[in-house]
């Protein structure tokens, strides 16, 4: 009998004393944890409703009566910025129940809930002893009843628009979780005069169309300006008497230099993400190939060597790859290759010709111009060619450029009369005209200034 027992204990895995203790401990732990979980009603929400967020922007309070207009203007710029983004719906101030807001006091949230404001921005503009402006703002979540953000900035009075853009960015970033793009500038080609003698000047403006400034005098033809992603520097193609050449221009100093000393025409320049190199096309006979030049060492490297026209190169934001257009397959299509050159892979397979690919600063899309059936379309596709989506299509749409957050694309559209600048969301919505003094083309978006 004992034999049987001992055999049994050998056969079956009897828990040791330690195991039993551990089990007891685990059991008591289980017993201690609250068991209310079983009574919880669980619910999955897998679809939301993306819509402009109603936001209330009462006029900023002015520290002195003479600053009231300035405070109102700053509020107006912030409101316009948020509205143009398409993600916010500023509420008409006439609906406000609580009119004057002291920025240091918690607002009466029920009053703002009553008009269905989800966010509230309050602010104050005061003048410092040295003449500088001090701008403060607070961003409130009306329904949760708490402050989301609050900052203050100092600047010279003439810089008030930038302050407004910076506050817009702060609000936008806190509420959308994305980088803002309001404190940016656009360089573009301003076109004046009759069609046969069009004067093209390089111009610079804020992203909302204000503060237009001309960078060239108009005695040379300028094309394809591009912003340096890391500094306030522009590269563009210009030609006066000789061959078209690629130039580098410092916006602040006005200093201009030629990029590379190539025999023949250079065009379609674009900076690398670190701003240290410029990649461009060089015409050689009937072909053109891609070259990259290091701006410090002035060393140039050939990237492609094909009997075809390779042009419009654009770096991926991590600098590892380049997308470009090429007719090596018979028609203009988009290709992607390693940044140091090498085998290129075609990614566009749709109908018509694809050109001017531009890699998004976020890396997720490549924007392009597509020409098919006599229509020009602006679209986006993923770097592997999938997920192609046309954002706008019409008589003439061309030259996409990305906002630094990769959400908005600016391009120029010509409906027959002349070109103007437009912006569109990558969802294809929020198609808006950008105010310019006259005809405008070839826009290029700057990086964030701050």
């Amino acid at each position, binding site marked *: 009998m004992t034999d049987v027992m001992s055999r049994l204990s050998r056969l079956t895995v009897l828990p040791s004393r330690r195991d039993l203790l551990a089990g007891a401990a685990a059991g008591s732990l289980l017993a201690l944890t609250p068991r209310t979980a079983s009574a919880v*009603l*669980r619910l999955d*929400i*897998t679809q939301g*409703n993306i819509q402009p967020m109603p936001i209330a922007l009462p006029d900023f309070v002015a520290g002195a009566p003479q600053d009231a207009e300035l405070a109102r203007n700053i509020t107006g710029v912030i409101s316009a910025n948020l509205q143009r983004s398409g993600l916010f719906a500023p509420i008409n101030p006439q609906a406000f129940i609580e009119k004057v807001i002291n920025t240091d006091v918690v607002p009466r949230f029920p009053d703002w809930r009553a008009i269905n404001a989800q966010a509230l921005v309050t602010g104050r503009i005061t003048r410092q002893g040295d003449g500088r402006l001090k701008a403060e703002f607070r961003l409130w*979540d009306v329904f949760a009843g708490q402050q989301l953000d609050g900052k203050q900035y100092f600047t010279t009075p003439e810089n008030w628009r930038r302050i407004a853009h910076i506050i817009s960015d702060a609000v936008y970033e806190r509420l959308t*979780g994305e980088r803002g793009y309001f404190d940016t500038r656009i360089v573009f080609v301003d076109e004046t005069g009759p069609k046969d003698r069009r004067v093209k000047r390089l111009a610079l403006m804020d992203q909302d169309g204000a503060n237009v400034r001309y960078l060239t005098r108009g005695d040379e033809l300028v094309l394809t300006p591009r912003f340096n992603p890391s500094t306030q520097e522009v590269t563009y193609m210009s030609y006066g008497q000789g061959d078209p050449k690629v130039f580098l221009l410092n916006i602040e100093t006005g200093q201009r230099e030629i990029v590379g000393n190539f025999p023949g025409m250079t065009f379609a320049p674009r900076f690398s993400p670190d701003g240290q190199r410029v990649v461009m096309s060089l015409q050689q006979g009937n072909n053109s190939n891609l070259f990259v030049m290091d701006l410090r060492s002035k060393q140039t490297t050939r990237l492609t060597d094909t009997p075809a026209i390779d042009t419009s190169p654009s770096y991926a934001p991590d600098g590892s790859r380049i997308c470009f257009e090429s007719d090596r397959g018979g028609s203009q299509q988009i290709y992607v290759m390693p940044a140091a050159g090498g085998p290129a892979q075609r990614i566009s397979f749709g109908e018509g010709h694809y050109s001017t690919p531009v890699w998004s600063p976020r890396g997720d899309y490549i924007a392009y111009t597509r020409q098919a059936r006599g229509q020009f379309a602006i679209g986006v596709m993923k770097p592997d060619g999938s997920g192609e989506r046309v954002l706008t299509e019409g008589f003439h749409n061309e030259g996409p450029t990305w906002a630094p957050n990769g959400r908005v694309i600016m391009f120029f559209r010509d409906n027959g009369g002349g070109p103007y600048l437009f912006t569109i969301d990558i*969802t294809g919505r929020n198609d808006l005209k950008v105010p310019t003094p006259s005809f405008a083309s070839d826009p290029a978006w700057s990086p964030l200034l701050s």
Partner: protein
Amino acid sequence: MKTASALSVTLHVAVLAWAMISFNGKAFDVPPVEAMPVDMIPVEDFTELTKGAKDAPKKEEPKPLVEKKQEEVKKPEETKPKVTEKKEVAAAKEEAPPPPQETKPDPIAEKIEKQEPPKPQQQAAKPPERLPPKRPPVPKQPKFDADKIAALLDKREAQRNAATGADLNSAPSLGASQGNAKRLSASELEALRARLMALWNPPVGIQNPEQFIIRVRMQLKPDGRLAGPPQVLSSGHGQLFDSARDSAIRAVFRAQPFDMLRKETYDTWKDIEVTFDPRDMFRG
């Protein structure tokens, strides 16, 4: 030996051949069966009782059908025990006379002892006739009441009706103590979900949606409003996560009051955990 093996082989072959022919590979035919229409009905419709409340108003719907029979049912229940007592009483009647005769000596003896020793013998014969009626009648008399006899007669008729009456009246209007039929209906849940979906405005900048699944736990008051600020159970970091979290919280706040939920089912929705999952919205 050879013949035996040969015979064995031939017989085996014969059996095998027969088996192969008779058990041919014809498949089992399953005659087509006519589809039988089946209604799917949730068990709850039949098994679940509503939880009772003491102050609940009585539903009077079933009454009219059974009203007359119920009255009759009550009477027989009361009379049942009495009927059995009556039978015993009947037996007692017959036996009653003898015991008094047996017990007679004792009371007599007591009285004799108290009064005078010589007289008891003469009185003994007389008192037994007088005493017995005094004692036994006290317990037995109530069983012979005229009312009870009438009940006996009534009982027989009532018993026949009682079976049907009890069955028909099986649904109590005040409910069972452990009833659990107070569940959220599918339409209530859908309405709740639809409200949250309409009000959830997730940040458009989401790129890796699996990192921004926000679980929110909220306690509700019976009036459908939040009992306190909702708790976020998910954790993450970065501005985008903050925005995603805020959007989920905002949806919960804005959805107040949750008036699509009935107060009767409060126990099931007083504690809700909502998962805001943006994966379906931001795939690609």
